[in-house]
C-alpha cells in the first residue's frame, strides 16, 4: 500500500516540481524506469505467491535499474547504444508481460 501511495505521490511531485533531469542521466532514465516497472511487477507477483521478501525486492530494484543503465552506457561506448537500448527494452517488456500474466493467473483462475 505504501508502495502505491509512494508511486502516486512521486508522479504528482514530478508533475508539480518538474525536476530537470541531469544531462548525464538523460539517456539512462527511460531504461531505468522500465527496469523499475519490471521489478515492481515482479514484486507484486512474488507477494501474491507468498514469497515476497522486502530485502530481495529492494536489492533487485536497485540492481535491475543499475544494470539496465549500465548496459545502455556500455552500448553507447561500444557504438551500439540504440540497438542495445532496444534489446534491453524488449527483454524487460517480455518480463513485464510474463509477470502480468502470472499475476492474472493467480488472481483469476479461469
Amino acid at each position, binding site marked *: *500500500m505504501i508502495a502505491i501511495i509512494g508511486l502516486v505521490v512521486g508522479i504528482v511531485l514530478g508533475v508539480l516540481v518538474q525536476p530537470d533531469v541531469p544531462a548525464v542521466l538523460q539517456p539512462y532514465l527511460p531504461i531505468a524506469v522500465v527496469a523499475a516497472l519490471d521489478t515492481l511487477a515482479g514484486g507484486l507477483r512474488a507477494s501474491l505467491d507468498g514469497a515476497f521478501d522486502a530485502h530481495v*525486492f529492494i536489492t533487485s530494484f536497485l540492481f535491475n535499474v543499475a544494470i539496465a543503465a549500465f548496459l545502455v552506457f556500455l552500448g553507447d561506448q561500444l557504438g551500439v547504444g540504440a540497438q542495445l537500448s532496444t534489446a534491453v527494452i524488449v527483454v524487460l517488456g517480455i518480463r513485464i508481460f510474463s509477470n502480468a500474466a502470472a499475476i492474472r493467473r493467480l*488472481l483469476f*483462475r479461469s
Partner: protein
Amino acid sequence: MSDGTRTPESPEQQREVWRRLRETLRPQATASQLIVGLLCLLLGISIAAQVRQGDDSLDGVSQQELVRLLDESGRHMADLEVENAELEDTLETLTSGQEGDEAARSAAEKRLEDLEILAGTAPAQGRGIVVSIDDPAGGVRSATLLGVIQELRNAGAEVIEIDDVRVVASTAVTTADDGALMVDGTELEAPYTVRAIGDPAVMEPALRIPGGAADSVAADGGTLAVVADDDVRIEATVPLEEPEHTEVVK
C-alpha cells in the same frame, strides 16, 4: 517466466491468493515497506520527469541519433538544392522564351507598320516637302504630273499624296474626257498639292534639276513651288485589295 508460479487449483488456494493481495495492499509501517515506498516515489518522479522530457524532441537523443538526423537533414537540403536549381533553370528558360516572343512580336509589329506605310493602308507623318503646282491654263499633262511623282520617288520619297489621293504602287495618273487630270480615277482641280515624306534636302533639289520636273511643269504653262515642312501629315489611305490570282511562293 511463469515457471515458479503455482496456478491455484482449488477455491481455498484462490482465496489465499486474494488474502495475500489484501495483505500486500494493507499499509504496514515497517522499515522495508517504507524503503519500498521511497523507491516507488523515486520511480514516480522519474516517470513524470521522463514523460515531460519527451516533449523536447532533441533532448536526450543519443549522439548516433543526432548524427543520423543531421545526415538526413543534410540529404534533404541537398535534394532541395537540386530541385531549386532545376526550377531556376525552368524559370530562366521560360523568361528567355518570353523575351524571345516579345522580341519577335515587336519585330513583327515594326514590319507590319513598315508594310502598312508602303502599301498605303495607314496614315503617315514625318519631315518632307509640300509641292504646289498651279495650273491656271490647265496645260499640265498627266505625263508631267507622273514625272513629278517619279522624280520624288527617285529622290527617296517614302509616302506621296496628291491632293487627297495616296500614291501607291498601283496608282495611275490619267486624263479625264474634259482634259482634267485624274489620279486613280479621282479628278483633280488646280492648284494641285503634292505632299511627300522623305529628305527635303534631297527631294527639293531633285525637282529643280534643269530639264527636270519643275521645268516640265513650266513648259506646260504651270508653276511649281516647293516648301520644306518638318511635319508633313498624310492622312489619305487606300483600301487593301486581296490578291485574287496571286499566292505567296512557299
